[in-house]
């Protein structure tokens, strides 16, 4: 069965420090991968998505970057965190190009920049 792992669950980082959030998927190949950020009580903001290794599409210009070094690994990074980077980060995957497939989400990382 397919599973998605996202870690850490919570993170407190000082302003100006680097960030690396990792997401891995098991049980499927060539998934579409997504990173979202969610402010408290708000909707999901799509940050990046990837349709294949090394292919990253950015939806919102910001202080963050994403990489996909392996088929089932998606990493969200920042060189220097800002206070405004605080939020709830979610990773998700869905089957390649199949409109009827559902998306599966990780449990999220709550990032607090102090």
């Amino acid at each position, binding site marked *: 069965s397919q599973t998605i792992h996202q870690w850490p669950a919570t993170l407190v980082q000082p302003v100006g420090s680097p960030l690396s959030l990792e997401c891995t998927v098991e049980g499927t190949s060539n998934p579409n991968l997504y990173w979202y950020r969610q402010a408290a009580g708000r909707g999901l903001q799509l940050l990046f998505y990837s349709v294949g290794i090394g292919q990253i599409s950015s939806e919102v210009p910001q202080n963050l970057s994403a990489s996909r070094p392996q088929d089932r690994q998606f990493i969200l990074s920042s060189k220097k965190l800002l206070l405004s980077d605080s939020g709830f980060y979610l990773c998700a995957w869905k089957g390649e190009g199949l*409109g009827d497939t559902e998306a599966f989400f990780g449990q999220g990382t709550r990032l607090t920049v102090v």
Partner: protein
Amino acid sequence: SQQGEEDPQALSIQEGENATMNCSYKTSINNLQWYRQNSGRGLVHLILIRSNEREKHSGRLRVTLDTSKKSSSLLITASRAADTASYFCTDNAGNMLTFGGGTRLMVKP
């Protein structure tokens, strides 16, 4: 993918009552999906309705789709406190996967 826009933004009901939330979208769709998010957790898929379907049921969930009005509704019957969550819709088309602001449902015991 075109995001749906859910309304109302928030809904508070008593346990046992029905909850209805709506989703509007802007372009043609292949299908529309509803997801639920419990507080502090990831989204979980609830139900998918295809563009050639008008109504679909899954347990206490009923979804309708009106392609002429570009809208969908999610009805939760006989609500329970455990239904307290945020609900999102998406058309899940193409490679992008975007969501609206969601409807925050609170079911009071």
